[in-house]
């Protein structure tokens, strides 16, 4: 029997040399006349350890972290195929603190299996949810999702089951399931990691959504910045169809569901659901006014379920294990687990799936290990470019939808970006406005013009020009954007800006650079 070695093909692993590592291991094995099977798995989410090579042994899977291609001969010399001792050896991967402390439901298989092997998928509980759904009436499936308490993981936190109920109840000759894989938020990568590491879970979730609501066609809209995820989804869809899990007769049930992966074209606003639908239909990604809701009139005017990758990928677990088992995780009105993403200036960045209620500090300090730079942690932006910057004093805020709102922030897609004390929050506030100006779809004046004005006003404040007056102006501008924008791009851009102003006002009150320089030359 040949030894099984796992070298991730997740794009994060590739970004730090996993391809060369896989080649070097294969070459070294050949040279030594050893039979090995190299599985290209997804990522375990311990991105800081990539490339993380694992070897299957009788004791379990043994990991070797941050392996480089040059390490291959030494690894073989150390007997790594039997889990031998080597400086890169981490021990049993499942027992590592980072893994053992998680509650991995949605990501249970990610990094474990071969992402494109249906056999591997089934051996790890894949399609159990779909099989149960096929044995239930569609309305029962919808109620199961309602009872699980699952809320949309794309940012708005709307109850997924309720959305499905509307689509199920709509009469139409054709309905759609659209998966929002636009994942534009900085600091987030869970959708990408799932699509690259366990794409069948998303396919299964979308198929269940189709069966529950009467939709027969699905689209996954993937941002073009994710070429690897796009290819992984395309291959997985083809494999699922070839295996009889998609098509006119899903798993021999006589019921139809099929899907396609589609590529976005570099527009942040296309993550907004109505803009995404416009884009899928082939138009400019301009936001539509609601109502009508997509659930009533969505893609091509037909009733459409539109959900984030993580919402849909949570459904197979819920169906397989029951709504109650899922709802047992979490706090308050945030039920289940959230794949959090720890990013930015941290020692250990990656993905951690935990029940709602964990605090920002636990993630950034315990899991993340503090700043990568070793300097003092100063701010954590939670929830992407439209999310608030949290100061040290608020790091014990629990991550759940309501607690975040109460702290004038939002959970968004669950991304956390840490900054050390070299950060200038006035600059970050300016960037928030600038990003809104770059990405605005152009439909509303407060968003399109207000954001550009916002950049100018912040520049004036920083330059020390009529500070009080311009501060007032900035607050008014934020009000206008909050109240007068059609979608959350314009509507929430004030959130990072106001959090910076509130918690880090000193950054807006520094001596203006020109004056500071002038003072320095004076004795």
């Amino acid at each position, binding site marked *: 029997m040949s030894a099984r070695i796992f070298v991730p093909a997740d*794009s*994060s692993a*590739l*970004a*730090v040399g996993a391809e060369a590592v896989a080649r070097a291991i294969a070459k070294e094995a050949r040279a030594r006349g050893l039979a090995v099977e190299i599985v290209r798995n997804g990522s375990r989410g311990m*991105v*800081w350890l*990539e490339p993380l090579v694992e070897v299957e042994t009788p004791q379990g899977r043994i990991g070797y972290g941050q392996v480089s291609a040059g390490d291959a001969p030494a690894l073989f010399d150390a007997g790594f195929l039997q889990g031998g001792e080597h400086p890169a050896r981490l021990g049993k991967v499942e027992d590592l603190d980072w893994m053992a402390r998680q509650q991995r439901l949605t990501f249970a298989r990610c990094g474990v299996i071969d992402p494109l092997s249906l056999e591997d998928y089934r051996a790890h509980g894949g399609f159990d949810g779909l099989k149960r759904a096929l044995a239930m009436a569609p309305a029962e499936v919808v109620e199961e999702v309602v009872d699980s308490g699952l809320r949309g993981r794309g940012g708005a936190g709307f109850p997924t089951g309720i959305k499905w109920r509307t689509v199920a109840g709509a009469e139409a000759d054709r309905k759609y399931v659209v998966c929002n894989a636009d994942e*534009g*938020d*900085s*600091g*987030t*990568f869970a959708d*990408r990691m799932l699509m690259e590491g366990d794409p069948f879970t998303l396919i299964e979730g979308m198929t269940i959504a189709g069966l529950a609501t009467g939709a027969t*066609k699905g*689209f996954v809209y993937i941002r*073009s*910045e*994710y*070429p*690897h*995820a796009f290819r992984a989804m395309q291959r997985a869809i083809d494999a699922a169809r070839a295996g009889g899990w998609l098509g006119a007769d899903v798993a021999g049930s006589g019921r139809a569901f099929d899907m*396609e992966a*589609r*590529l*976005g*074209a*570099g*527009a*942040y606003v296309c993550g907004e659901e109505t803009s995404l639908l416009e884009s*899928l*239909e*082939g*138009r*400019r*990604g*301009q936001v539509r006014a609601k109502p009508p809701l997509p659930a009533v009139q969505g*893609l*091509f005017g037909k009733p459409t379920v539109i959900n984030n990758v993580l919402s849909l990928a949570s459904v197979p677990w819920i169906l397989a294990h029951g709504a109650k088992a899922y709802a047992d995780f979490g706090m308050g009105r945030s039920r289940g687990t959230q794949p959090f*993403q720890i*990013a*930015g*200036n*941290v020692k250990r*960045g*990656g*993905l951690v799936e935990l029940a709602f209620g964990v605090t920002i500090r636990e993630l950034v300090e315990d899991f993340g290990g503090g700043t*990568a730079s070793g300097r003092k942690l100063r701010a954590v*932006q939670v929830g992407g*470019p439209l999310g608030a910057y949290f100061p040290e004093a608020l790091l014990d805020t629990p991550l759940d939808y309501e607690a975040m709102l109460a702290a004038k922030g939002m959970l968004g897609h669950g*991304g956390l*970006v*840490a*900054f*050390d004390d070299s*950060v200038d929050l006035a600059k*970050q506030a300016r960037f928030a406005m600038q*990003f809104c100006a770059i*990405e605005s779809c152009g439909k509303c004046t407060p968003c399109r013009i207000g954001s550009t004005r916002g950049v100018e006003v912040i520049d004036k404040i920083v330059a020390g020009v009529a500070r009080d007056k311009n501060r007032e102006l900035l607050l008014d501008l934020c009000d206008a954007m909050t109240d007068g924008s059609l979608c959350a791009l314009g509507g929430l851009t004030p959130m990072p800006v106001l959090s910076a102003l509130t918690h880090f006002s000193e950054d807006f009150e520094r001596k203006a650079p020109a004056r500071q320089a002038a003072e320095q030359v004076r004795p």
Partner: protein
Amino acid sequence: MGQDTQAPLSFDEGRALEIIGGLAHLEGAMLPILHALQDAFGHIDARMVPLVASALNVSRADAHGAVSFYHDFRDAPAGRHVLRICRAESCQSMGCERLVEHLRHTHRLTPGETTADGALTLENVYCLGQCALSPAALVDGEPVGRLDEKRLDALLGQLKGARA
């Protein structure tokens, strides 16, 4: 579009029509067609737009509107290599702005521009989903993470080598 219609086409019209015809049956075929055209020709020539419009039965204005809305579609070819550097928050927290300055000063590269010899285009991008490896970039579609000045210099050296 202000273009001289008498000028010879810079692309093979037959091939463009073949690409368009091969995808026009898709639901919402516009973006798949535009991506395929750009993949084949490196850009979307203004004179491809009427071909797409007529195949999809939409007005030229609508087709042009779609092309112009999306950051991805170029109206002129990029350099032989494309470096897309992330400028979003996570990469900011790890010093991407310093790297952009380095590219500007040491390599005379400016975001949004192509070098005079057509070798390299530098572009801004806002998040690549590599935020646990910030600062990150895409080099000809392949992700690179944990960038610093040295790694960037090495990458640019390799790209130059690849072209020699």
